[in-house]
């Protein structure tokens, strides 16, 4: 499934894999875009897969004329070897009945490349929150048992909220409790599979609604940053004229809500 850019696949042993779930508001994907763009990660390959709707465009992270003409497709892998980070970006939705197959192939690839851990950035429908969730932070995390062993203390020190279990059948009060992530796409499937395959995986998600989800994506990367310290937050005193957000918005985020309006409309 993975096709390297060069002649041979790079060594990703011990790397942290960051990936999105295609989920409500596309928050995970927007967050991965921010990470790739801010860290200026280089493309190391792509997935040749029949599971995602095909798409192609020019470089979504272009900063100048010279680097704007590289083609980009629906599932690409980027890396930053100095920080032992590898990021998978997914840019289209799953073809019907193909998401399970993709999860299997993805986790098989994860095992092959011997990465240290996987962090899935995702989101869930905010309207599904219960009363307690409505009153608390919109961010949640989940860890597979093998991941818990290595990072439990760090996560505890961050005072994060773990994703609560809810009744399997919401209408029936005493139905079995389980993890449900409505609107989370393949998040739950990936999490369940990783638990059974003993893969070190963490899920970071935010409760969101569809709309302008850029602030949600920024919130999610900041949440991830509390743990991984991907970038150091810029202090206000460093440069008063600079934006307080250290995250670089990719050039492809322009016109997210369509073209300009005809002046005659007004």
């Amino acid at each position, binding site marked *: 499934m993975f096709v390297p850019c060069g002649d041979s696949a790079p060594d990703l042993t011990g790397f942290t894999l960051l990936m999105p779930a295609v989920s409500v508001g596309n928050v995970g994907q927007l967050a991965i875009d921010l990470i790739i763009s801010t860290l200026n990660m280089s493309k190391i390959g792509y997935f040749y897969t*029949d599971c995602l709707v095909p798409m192609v465009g020019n470089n979504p992270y272009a900063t100048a004329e010279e680097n704007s003409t590289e083609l980009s497709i629906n599932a690409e892998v980027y890396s930053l070897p100095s920080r032992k980070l590898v990021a998978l970006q997914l840019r289209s939705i799953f*073809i019907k009945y193909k998401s399970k197959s993709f999860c299997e192939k993805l986790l098989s690839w994860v095992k092959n490349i011997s990465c240290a851990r996987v962090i899935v950035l995702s989101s869930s429908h905010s309207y599904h929150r219960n009363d307690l969730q409505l009153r608390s932070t919109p961010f949640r995390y989940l860890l597979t048992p093998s991941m818990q062993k290595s990072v439990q203390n760090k996560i505890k020190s961050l005072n994060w909220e773990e994703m609560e279990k809810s009744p399997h059948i919401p209408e029936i009060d005493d139905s079995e409790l389980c993890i449900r992530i409505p609107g989370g796409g393949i998040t739950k499937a990936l999490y369940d599979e990783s638990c059974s395959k003993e893969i070190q995986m963490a899920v970071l998600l935010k409760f969101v609604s569809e709309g302008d989800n850029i602030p949600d994506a920024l919130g999610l990367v900041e949440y991830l940053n509390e743990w991984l310290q991907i970038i150091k937050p810029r202090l206000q005193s460093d440069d008063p004229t600079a934006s307080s957000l250290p995250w670089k918005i990719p050039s492809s985020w322009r016109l997210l809500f369509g*073209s300009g309006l005809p002046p005659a409309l007004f």
Partner: protein
Amino acid sequence: MAATFFGEVVKAPCRAGTEDEEEEEEERTETPEDREVRRQLARKREVRLLQRQTKTSLEVSLLEKYPCSKFIIAIGNNAVAFLSSFVMNSGVWEEVGCAKLWNEWCRTTDTIHLSPTEAFCVFYHLKSNPSVFLCQCSCYIAEDQQYQWLEKVFGSCPRKNMQITILTCRHVTDYKTSESTGSLPSPFLKALKTQNFKDPLCCSLLEQPNIAHDLPAADVMKLDLITVEAFKPILSSRSLKGLVKNISQSTEMLKKLMTTNEIQSNIYT
């Protein structure tokens, strides 16, 4: 969920396409009969390459059977009309195969044979230089069939030293620009190219955030002369040079195609 003006709560569509829970539920409650129906439907939707002359199907991918140095693909009525009038009209092209597929928009009958009216996706090579291929594709190829189509035509091995040109159309309303799309001088040409393509382009590159997706649907775009003629700058490119001879004759041929395809509206007569 969203509340309408009248106070009813409706399920708002999720643009991330996460109807996953329904899909998972479907799979969990699937009976053997359901699975069989799904298998039969998958078989019906399979893409097959046929050779109409011999009434046989191709056992290997098209390009595993035939060597290819140049491949020009037209997807959609306008691109197909352009290649018919300007390229196919200028040389002798021999049919080498035909893709047969069935989906909700492209309902071919489920037999090994393909009638002329069902030949929506035909492959030709140039008699004088058989490594030059052309594909005229005017049918809609669904999401779940696109990868299959690719494998049936190109196989699974990457092919170097082959130049591929793809011609297609999109609605100008899909084009994202800071001005209003109504003010754009349409139709206009845009290109996407791989890094290995070193020849000069006859038009500017497709800027982000614009993308191309699917094997573009042909059925939504009506055939029209102005759109087809917008492809003309490509005639000077290296991929099509030498394949086009008489442009004025081609233009006449195109006009004939237009009249044949015009839908006569008699709503007011």
